């Protein structure tokens, strides 16, 4: 019984999700120490900024490139480690001159071992196995909520950006209208005031 509780603590899927801002011409790297034959998944999505794209590359401890994509909006990458060591995942915004991006990243590793130990003296009762299936389904629900939240954040930033641009351009265009209208008249008047003598002579 005691051992059961102890095993309860240690098993589980490890994962971190982080949302960070990547300034222009900057690179941000994250490292993770993994054992051999461990499966890891990396999901990333650009939430705001410019063309909503970022460069991403993943390298293993011996600096072999496992994944390298340029200007991606979102992607998912899975790999099973061939050696033990520090794996690196980098996001680069070096191609952008002035827009800074907000990037969401999720790094999951470990096997899908449930919170409870699988090696037991008795099989799971029906109640317990229903609990396990409900737990798995709820994990899927929470996951899709995260995806939905990210997409919505992306669309909302775009909409707010659009509103800002519409406001500035409308204001700018109205000012331009007035300036051009008045300056046209002024310019025409100036033509006739200078060459008043020559025009009167020709007609």
């Amino acid at each position, binding site marked *: 019984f005691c051992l059961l509780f102890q095993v309860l603590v*240690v098993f589980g899927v490890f994962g971190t999700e*982080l949302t960070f801002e990547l300034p222009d011409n900057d690179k941000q*790297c*994250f490292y993770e120490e993994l054992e051999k034959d461990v499966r890891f998944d990396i999901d990333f999505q650009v939430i705001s900024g410019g063309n909503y794209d970022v460069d991403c590359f993943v390298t293993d401890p011996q600096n072999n490139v496992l994944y390298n994509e340029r200007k991606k909006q979102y992607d998912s990458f899975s790999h099973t480690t061939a050696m033990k060591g520090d794996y690196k995942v980098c996001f680069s915004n070096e191609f952008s001159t002035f827009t800074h991006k*907000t990037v969401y990243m999720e790094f999951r590793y470990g096997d899908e071992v449930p919170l409870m130990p699988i090696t037991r003296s008795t099989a799971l009762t029906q109640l317990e196995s229903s609990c396990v299936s409900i737990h798995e389904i709820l994990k899927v629900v*929470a996951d899709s*909520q995260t995806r939905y939240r990210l997409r919505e954040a992306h669309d909302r930033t775009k909409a707010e950006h659009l509103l800002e641009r519409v406001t500035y351009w409308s204001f700018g265009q109205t000012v331009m209208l007035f300036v051009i209208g008045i300056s046209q008249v002024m310019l025409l008047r100036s033509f006739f005031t200078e060459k008043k003598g020559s025009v009167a002579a020709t007609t």
Partner: protein
Amino acid sequence: MVSVKMHPCVLSVLLLNVFCSFVSSLYFHIGETEKKCFIEEIPDETMIIGNYRTQLYDKQAEEYLPATQGLGMFVEVKDPDDKVILSRQYGSEGRFTFTSHTPGEHQICLHSNSSKFSLFAGGMLRVHLDIQVGEHANNYAEIAAKDKLTELQLRVRQLVEQVDQIQKEQNYQRYREERFRQTSESTNQRVLWWSIVQTLILVAIGIWQMRHLKSFFEAKKLV
């Protein structure tokens, strides 16, 4: 004073948990005066627990060793209204907790408090960070020990927490979609009004130009 008699099993669980709570996690490098910020978009009444551990590059050992006690990290958490809800300095290893009271984007910023530039020796500080949100922040072993739950009860408790978190997220989702709809409708209105106003201004300026020029030429006796 009430003496609590701890079952040795429970005690070992708690001890093991304390040591295992920070096994390994993602790390990144941070410069001396650099400030690294992370954004967490969360519904309200959600607890966030962050654990961090720092390591400094030791030139003699040529590897990263745990940082000295003097080196600490300054943690600052801002809520969606840019109000600071947590602003504290922790040691080289720390754990910060906060609960959100307004839904939205919270910003967690970390920077080192080192004022002695020689301490970093031109290298970088390695920070291991782990942020757990909502239901993931729950420590089930602790809950099981505290409330004395059986395995089935613990599973059900976990399901209840999960569903609770999903419901909070859905409420937040509804609030965000309303904001999105307001932004879109306001864009639509603005585009409509500005187009009408600009067309009227165009026509008005055209008429004014013609009238002004006509009176100008009549005055100059050209028309």
